[in-house]
């Protein structure tokens, strides 16, 4: 009996009961596809978080007003001011700080030639903002310090805003009306993309005094200060410097009574990444269970097949089939089931990975493909071998008498 013949017998055996073989294969298919796809979804979501970290800039620190963590004993909260920002920009006191950008933010409706679009984030800031927030212009240019000093009505807009207002036309040099104030567009930012609730590309960035004049008023208070540390490693020392300087600015003596918060983007996102990993592991576990159930399906089918064909096994043994041949025939059948089922499962998963699933673009982990496929085939061999060896060990007369 050569392997080819064994394979042909196995095909014959499976073809003899197409519906049953098909359903068993379906079980394995779903198991394998679920493992690959669910892991890909989990991986895709953590990949998206990682990308978001990169997009935000790992050097960036955000200083916001408020009694932070709740452990603070501050009774009066002094708002952040442009003076605070200036103090942070003093390189002699804060050597680890590279750039400081005070921010005010609001939301306004932008109109261009009758097209209206609500911009979710209108930011008034300094040019340092662009580098600190990792925002690069794609077309046109940034606004300058000179624009800030003269409160010019110029703006850099995000790609979503640009598309919504101008379509495919270039927005550079055009004048949009933002909350009643005309702004000349000088630059368009490159698309950042993102998976958060807020589209980071739906934004208008303008000089701080211009935005204060037009929308938030000149109270002197600002929403937050974006600080860029010199390097990603310097964020901790930069945080300490910010705390010291602002405590001086706000006349606070005890570090436990601070009325501001310094947070790094990275710290915010590591939390999300670890949540994501838990999520991936859970998804993987669910998928693994479905694969196991598929394996039990194979065992069950092989047991039924063997029981049903015990007489046939007896006949084959009576005409001289060695135990090994019977064993390999049934093993070939179960392996073939899992091989074809697993192969189709991999195909289904790879096709499925082209589509967004619950808003996440799945990123297939190559190891999961080999792993799931390998496990499926191993399951076929393992779970198939029990009924097969049971059948092959029968004495011919016992098998023949089987009803």
């Amino acid at each position: 009996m050569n392997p080819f013949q064994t394979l042909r017998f196995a095909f014959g055996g499976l073809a003899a009961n197409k519906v049953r073989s098909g359903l068993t294969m379906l079980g394995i298919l779903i198991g394998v596809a679920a493992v690959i796809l669910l892991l890909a979804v989990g991986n895709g979501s953590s990949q998206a978080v990682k990308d978001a970290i990169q997009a935000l800039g790992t050097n960036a620190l955000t200083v916001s007003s408020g009694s932070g963590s709740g452990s603070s004993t501050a009774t009066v909260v002094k708002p952040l001011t442009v003076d605070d920002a200036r103090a942070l920009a003093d390189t002699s006191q804060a050597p680890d700080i590279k750039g400081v950008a005070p921010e005010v933010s609001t939301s306004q409706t932008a109109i261009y030639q009758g097209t209206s679009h609500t911009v979710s984030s209108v930011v008034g800031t300094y040019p340092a903002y662009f580098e600190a927030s990792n925002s690069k212009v794609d077309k046109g240019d940034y606004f300058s310090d000179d624009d800030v000093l003269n409160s010019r009505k110029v703006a850099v807009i995000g790609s979503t805003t640009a598309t919504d207002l101008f379509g495919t036309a270039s927005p550079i040099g055009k004048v949009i009306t933002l909350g009643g104030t005309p702004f000349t567009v000088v630059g368009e930012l490159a698309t950042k993309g993102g998976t958060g609730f807020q589209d980071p590309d739906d934004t208008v960035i303008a000089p701080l005094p211009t935005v204060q004049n037009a929308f938030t008023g000149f109270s002197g208070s600002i929403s937050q200060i974006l600080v860029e540390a010199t390097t990603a490693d310097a964020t901790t020392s930069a945080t300490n410097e910010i705390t010291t300087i602002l405590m001086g600015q706000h006349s606070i003596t005890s570090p436990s009574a601070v009325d501001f918060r310094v947070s790094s983007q990275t710290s915010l996102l590591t939390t999300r990444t670890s949540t994501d990993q838990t999520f991936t592991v859970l998804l993987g576990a669910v998928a693994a269970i479905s694969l196991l159930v598929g394996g039990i399906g194979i065992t069950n089918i092989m047991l039924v097949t063997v029981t049903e064909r015990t007489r046939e096994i007896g006949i084959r043994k009576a005409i001289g089939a060695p135990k090994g041949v019977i064993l390999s025939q049934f093993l070939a059948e179960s392996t073939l089931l899992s091989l074809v089922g697993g192969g189709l499962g991999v195909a289904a998963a790879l096709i499925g990975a082209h589509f967004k699933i619950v808003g996440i673009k799945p990123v297939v982990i190559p190891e999961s493909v080999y792993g799931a496929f390998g496990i499926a085939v191993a399951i076929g061999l393992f779970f198939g071998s029990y009924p097969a060896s049971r059948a092959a060990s029968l004495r011919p007369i016992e098998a023949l008498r089987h009803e």
Partner: protein
Amino acid sequence: MRLRSRPQQPPPTAAPVPRGPVPILAVRKLVKTYGHGDAAVHALAGPVDADGVEQGVDLTVHQGDFVAIMGSSGSGKSTLMNILGCLDAPTSGRYLLDGIDVGHLDEHQLSLVRNRKIGFIFQSFNLVPRTTALAQVELPLAYAGVKAAERRRRAMAALTLVGLADRADHRPNELSGGQQQRVAVARALVTSPAMLLADEPTGNLDSRSTDDVLAIVDRLNAAGRTIVLITHEDEVARHAKRVVRLVDGQIYEDIRQAPLQGLPPALQDPVEFASHTLHVGHVRAHANGGDR
């Protein structure tokens, strides 16, 4: 030419006798008991001595013989046959097949013996389902490792011998009972085994199919093949050279009807043989409305 009502073999330990026919199978003190204690069924026991110890069954069959085993239902015929066919193991006793002590063979060697030395024909045909007649007959050759082309040629020759060459592509469910049994005969003889064992091969067949199958068996025996078959019908036993009768797990009588060497009774004088057919009763039954 020696005629013996009870073959007397030298004990297995003795040196082989140079003259005389070669024994192809020999069983010594064969006992088969199913179950234990009070519920034990002594399917093969042989004579019991004064102490109540079972002596077991002794039987020797020579090359070229045609033995019919008869006996009432439950007398142990199938039990004996299954042991002779290496399908079952005896409780005690020795079985020498072509000089080999089968009791000492392992599982794999046993499968080789079943494949090369024995052709087994069952009462219930026992064809592999969903398999064409040709593939069916090729199967033992496939297990023996014969190449595809050679396998096909020999399987076709065997099918031609049983007159079923034109049914090579039919599956068992597309064949009549008689045709199925002829496929089973072809399958049993395709490996040219030393002997053909048949457990009531015509038990499920009508008289015409019985004649077809027996004619093949007669020709095989005439060609030198050893045949052992079980039957209930005197008409079938008439074809054998020797008839062994079992009663309650022991050999009750052993009659030689024709010499060991030479043609089986049916072929010695076919016309004379046919004139004594016991089928007449059947024929009359058919004429009276029995179907065929």
